[in-house]
């Protein structure tokens, strides 16, 4: 099922998928995805977004947390977070929580 163009929305709750092993390297993060057999290196910013994808924080929560931490323009950070979450989903690293992209607009949301 295709990812909707407007996903994720502000109230989406992205969730890291089980089976991706993470290794911290400097400020970066290496992820090994056992399912896709991919080794993926996240830079510090992407690693930070990944760290927030716990299925309880909404996209807006993640943006707020990163604005607080980095003090940068919220619109810029929101764009970066949205792009990063989509990329992580493209790579199959987010769990769809059994919902899939079913038109509810909250695909990849656990609960």
């Amino acid at each position, binding site marked *: 099922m295709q990812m909707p163009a407007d996903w994720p929305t502000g109230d989406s709750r992205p969730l890291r998928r089980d089976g991706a092993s993470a*290794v911290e*390297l*400097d400020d970066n993060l*290496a992820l*090994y995805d056992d399912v896709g*057999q991919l080794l993926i290196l996240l830079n510090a910013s992407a690693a930070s977004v990944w760290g927030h994808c716990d299925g309880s924080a909404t996209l807006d929560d993640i943006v707020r947390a990163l604005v607080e931490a980095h003090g940068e323009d919220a619109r810029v950070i929101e764009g970066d977070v949205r792009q990063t979450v989509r990329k992580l989903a493209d790579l199959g690293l987010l769990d769809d929580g059994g919902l899939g992209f079913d038109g509810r607009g909250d695909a990849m949301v656990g609960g």
Partner: protein
Amino acid sequence: MGTGNRWAHCTPEFHALSYCFAVRSDDEELARRAQAVFAGLRTRARGTPGPAEAGVRRRCWYSVRTAGDGAVDVWRDEAVLAACGHPDEAISWIVWDVNRSAADTGGDHLLFHAGALESDAGGVLVPGASGVGKSTLTAGLVRAGLGYLSDELVALDLSSGRLLPYAKPITLKAGSFGVLSDMRPPWDRAPEWQVAVGPDSGLAVGRPCTPSLVVVPRYVAGADTTVVALSATEAFLTLALNAVNLVQHGAAGTDALGAAAARCTCVLLTTSDLDAACRIVLALLEQRAAGAGAVGAGVATVFVEE
């Protein structure tokens, strides 16, 4: 392994990680030469699992048959491996096939395209693709007194985090003959030198050890010798790119790579001078042994030898 009686000489068994083999020939001198070349694979260093414990995955005979015109055929069990114009080429073919078979059967371990050595300060990994100078640097460091683990295929035991010896002969190409001329083997008509290690060679086989230094070699003709610190991320990516079977080990392999990258001093060594490169590696090991952080990430160039 049975020996039959049409062979002039049969070698004892050798162990290349989980691959076990022996060589026989109707030419006694040739078979004894093979025995000398593979002597490092007879050495079981203290702390190395024996064949039974290590789990032999495959056993093969290499049979070398001479013809009247000086040509030589090499067989692996019942299949022809190579038809050679000169006996020295036969040894190189066997070395090549042993290396391939060691990689095919050694999948219990995380394998790298790399050289490796043992020192008092821990293991040294020299990762890199063919042609970057890893065999040359490895040979130079063995000559300088470090214990030899491998020049081409390195096994990391995931349960202990230690590098294991796979002491195949050191394979040197023509570009290295000049700087390592004292390692010239008595048989040298093949395009490559197969330098024996282990007993009687004067080149020691190392023991299993935990890696403490990663040296990424880069040979550049005419270049000064420089060493630049690599970050843990850069070291991790270098090791991952040179891993043979990372997919097979998945998360466990990734964790092991991360642990090695975090624990080791990691440097990029650019050189055109083998002696200078060896001096720098030995200096880095001395600093590791002394407990100093030899090179910190972010330090641009810490040694330059002109």
